[in-house]
């Protein structure tokens, strides 16, 4: 059996146990980052996920380059993540209840939000409005995609506008915060969800810990931006272990839609 080392407690664990435990260390409970496909697999009913607009891709419209050009970074990100962008968008059932679902992937340029993320969230929102089904978004993002300059900032406006329309249509919207969710994503669609669920250990804040430390010129508390502190500060509704998230989402979907979850659809 393959052995791996937990990134947090450094203990040796069986790779199988680790993956069967949804990438959570069975010894210390550390929630390792899940990629978008893994998340879909662990959340949606088996075979129920239909992806939308998977081939929509980013354009280097500013001819942006820093140490690398934007195009180069995009190619690298595609290779690293196996995705076309930092978000997967589609529709699925969770315990038989239909929902639109978006999952961000931190492996794609740090889950940064550019035009494609904005557009794909819009597509998901419109799907929810037209079919009157809830929306679930799993966030994981370092913030806006600087390589798209001001247009990445405008994605905050764009996504909030979409969610605002969703809300006016009384469509339920749940957000699951995964590690890390900061900057432009936390300051736009993530924080205006009807219900906010967070994984333990997920950093969820606007300004990152280092920036804050530089501003206040002293050490920040160890739990800065973490789930327990966010709960205490009234910023999230529920802290859910990864293995509970499917249950929690099914329950919320059920309460908000009045549909009864079906157990047989569980993976």
């Amino acid at each position, binding site marked *: 059996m393959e052995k791996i080392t937990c990134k947090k407690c450094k203990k040796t664990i069986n790779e199988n146990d680790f993956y069967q435990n949804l990438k959570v260390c069975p010894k210390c409970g550390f929630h390792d980052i899940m990629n978008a496909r893994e998340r879909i697999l662990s959340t949606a009913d088996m075979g129920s996920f239909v992806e*939308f*607009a*998977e*081939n*929509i*891709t*980013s*354009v280097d419209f*500013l001819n942006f*380059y*820093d*140490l690398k*050009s934007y195009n180069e970074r995009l190619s690298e990100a595609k290779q690293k993540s196996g995705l076309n962008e930092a978000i997967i968008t589609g529709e699925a059932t969770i315990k038989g209840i239909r929902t639109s679902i978006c999952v961000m992937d931190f492996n794609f340029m740090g889950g940064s939000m550019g*035009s494609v993320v*904005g*557009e794909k969230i*819009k*597509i998901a929102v419109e*799907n929810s409005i037209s079919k009157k089904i809830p929306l679930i978004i799993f966030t994981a993002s370092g913030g*806006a995609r*600087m390589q*798209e*300059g*001001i*247009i*990445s*900032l*405008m*994605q*905050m*406006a*764009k996504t*909030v*506008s979409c*969610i*605002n*329309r969703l809300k*006016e249509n009384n469509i339920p919207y749940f957000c699951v915060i995964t590690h890390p969710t900061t*900057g*432009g994503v*936390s*300051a*736009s*669609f*993530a*924080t*205006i969800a009807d219900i906010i669920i967070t994984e333990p250990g997920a950093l*969820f*804040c*606007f*300004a990152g810990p280092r*920036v*804050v430390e530089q*501003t*206040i010129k002293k050490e920040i508390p160890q739990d*800065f*931006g973490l789930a327990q502190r966010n709960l205490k*500060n*009234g*910023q999230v509704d529920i802290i859910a272990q990864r293995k509970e998230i499917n249950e929690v989402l099914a329950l919320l979907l059920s309460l908000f839609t009045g549909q009864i979850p079906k157990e047989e659809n569980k993976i």
Partner: protein
Amino acid sequence: MEVDKIKNLPKSFLKDSLKSIFKIEKLKRITGFTGVHFNDAEKKLAQKIENYRHVEREALKTWRIVQLSRDEKRPHTPDYINGIFEDFIQLSGDRLGMDDKSIITGLGRLDGRTVAVIGHNKGKDIKERVEFNFGSSMPQGYRKAMRIMEIAQRFGFPVITFIDTPGAYPALEAEDSGQAGAIAKSICTMFSLTVPTITVLIGEGGSGGALALAIGNYVMMLENSTYSVISPEGCASILWRDSSVARLASRALKLTSRDLFKLGVIDKIIYEPAGGAHNNPERMIRIVRSYLKNTLKKFCSSKDFDFKKHRAQKYEAMGFVNLTDRQKV
């Protein structure tokens, strides 16, 4: 220095390349006078360095605008309020626990019409600037703004916002009281208004802290103001891992009024008196007043116009994507 890596602009590129430029200039002259020729790699390098010089010139130009946009002598929100609105009355407080003075809110009259006014307030002297966090707002500031937006909505007052902030305040207490959510909710509230909203970027338009108040049916930007997803310094430090190349970052970010107009993010560039707004603040304020007055008049006379829908459509259309493969859903 290897040709292939130049475009990646390594950490010390600026210094290195300036040295190289000196060498290449010498080489060129040598060519001209001596007929000595260079190989392809050398020519490519020379060309890249030429390009780089152009980049560096542009970066300097942009950087000057960044500096101008931050100039303490520029007219600030209180100056515009005093010079533009009659019967202005300042309103205070979020009703939740704080009055964040880094955002001014109130009601006033322009051209006989009552309007709600919201603007970042950097402070007029060092004491005020420290007190107002140099125009960086706490969540409470945005919550105060939302309270005034709701008054505007209920009573049909158009909302006019002045943007001038380095960004939302990145402090522990700001995070603990929900900075991210306050910004998101402020944006959301602006989208929910059925009254017209007009935004004027008058100085620094720093990231989410600026955007929170900047969802305008009509967005005007002073010639030498900036509007950016991140400060050039922050961008340089993250992408180049070297905050000293902020000038390069400022150019790359496309944060000037001209860039933003081209990108369709703003609706109007307001040109400044020669040398910048600070050279003739009275005139600058008169100019802004006149644009605001005209815009307001136009908006108030179009009764059936759906300002809310217009904002949604405008901002939801923003973005550049490769749509060829877009599936219909």
